[in-house]
């Protein structure tokens, strides 16, 4: 990979500025996670540990959603882990580009999320990719955790979250995460089937299980399209 010299400083600034912008937008949204989490019955400390250790929005909302619905902790944990597998895929794409070795790698790993991947995977040099990855990842990490704490504190004060439509906000958050992937027709079919299966199973199983059952749609669809021509690419998150 070519390494950009000092003459590419303006590009570097632009990448950092974009990264911080994404960080602010995503971080602010941590307020709603904090508020939803305490409304689901988790403590402020548990909420903050989720943002610090798990640090991947969809998984965090999923585990909290199971808690809110009165589901079993193990259902929440498994759903969170299944959603977390996409970060493994991001890591595979990022590894040759970022080239992090030694002690840097386990630190960088925590920052592998939708946003940092989107802001670095398209760069043409290792330096530019690292700049995009680190500026976005660190901005999101810092602000997401600060705003999670703020949201958790506020959530404890505001009372019934339904008054503020926080329960509707969670569905909208999942939809916003799903939206870019719906550009693909095959994905739309899988999404529709998964939603139908999940709703069909709701009356039959405890909370949290319907989503796991719907995960089976992904397995089935993957196996059934085994002979399809080209393997899908990771869509930009």
């Amino acid at each position: 990979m070519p390494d950009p010299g000092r003459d590419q400083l303006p590009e570097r600034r632009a990448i950092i500025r974009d990264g911080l912008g994404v960080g602010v937008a995503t971080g602010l949204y941590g307020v709603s996670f904090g508020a939803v989490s305490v409304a689901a019955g988790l403590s402020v400390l548990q909420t903050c540990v989720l943002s610090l250790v798990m640090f991947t929005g969809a998984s965090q909302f999923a585990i909290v959603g199971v808690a809110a619905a009165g589901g079993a902790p193990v259902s929440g944990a498994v759903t969170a882990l299944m959603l977390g597998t996409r970060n493994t895929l991001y890591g595979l794409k990022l590894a040759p580009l970022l080239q992090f070795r030694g002690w840097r790698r386990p630190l960088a790993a925590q920052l592998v999320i939708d946003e940092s991947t989107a802001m670095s995977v398209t760069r043409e040099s290792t330096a530019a990719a690292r700049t995009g990855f680190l500026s976005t990842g660190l901005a999101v990490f810092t602000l997401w955790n600060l705003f999670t704490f703020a949201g958790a504190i506020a959530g404890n004060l505001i009372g019934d979250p339904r008054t503020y439509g926080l329960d509707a906000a969670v569905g909208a958050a999942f939809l916003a995460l799903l939206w870019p992937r719906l550009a693909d027709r095959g994905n739309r079919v899988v999404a529709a089937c998964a939603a139908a299966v999940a709703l069909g199973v709701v009356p039959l199983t405890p909370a949290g299980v319907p989503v796991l059952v719907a995960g089976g749609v992904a397995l089935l669809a993957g196996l059934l399209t085994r002979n399809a021509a080209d393997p899908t690419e990771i869509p930009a998150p």
Partner: protein
Amino acid sequence: MTWWWAILGAGIGCYLLKLAGLSVPARVLERPLVERIADLIPVALLSALVAVQVFASGTHLTVDARAAGLAAAVVALLLRAPFLVVVVVAALTASLLRVVFPGW
């Protein structure tokens, strides 16, 4: 399993999934079938989460203010609104509807 165990277990697990991606040689997981299923899992799970979050109430299916919130979110997404706006629009819609129709 208590919620603390679920939070710590899944939290550390999610971290290890990230680290695996950066550490495992790409060849190990870069098989068409594995890659395709791994791409489809978030699609299926996120879609199921939307459905359950909006239309389930315990083990019952129901249509209430959350559905209106979701419809508002779709409109916001079609207008290419940023993430935070989508979420706030959905929450505001549901909360205003509940002012008009209490208990909905």
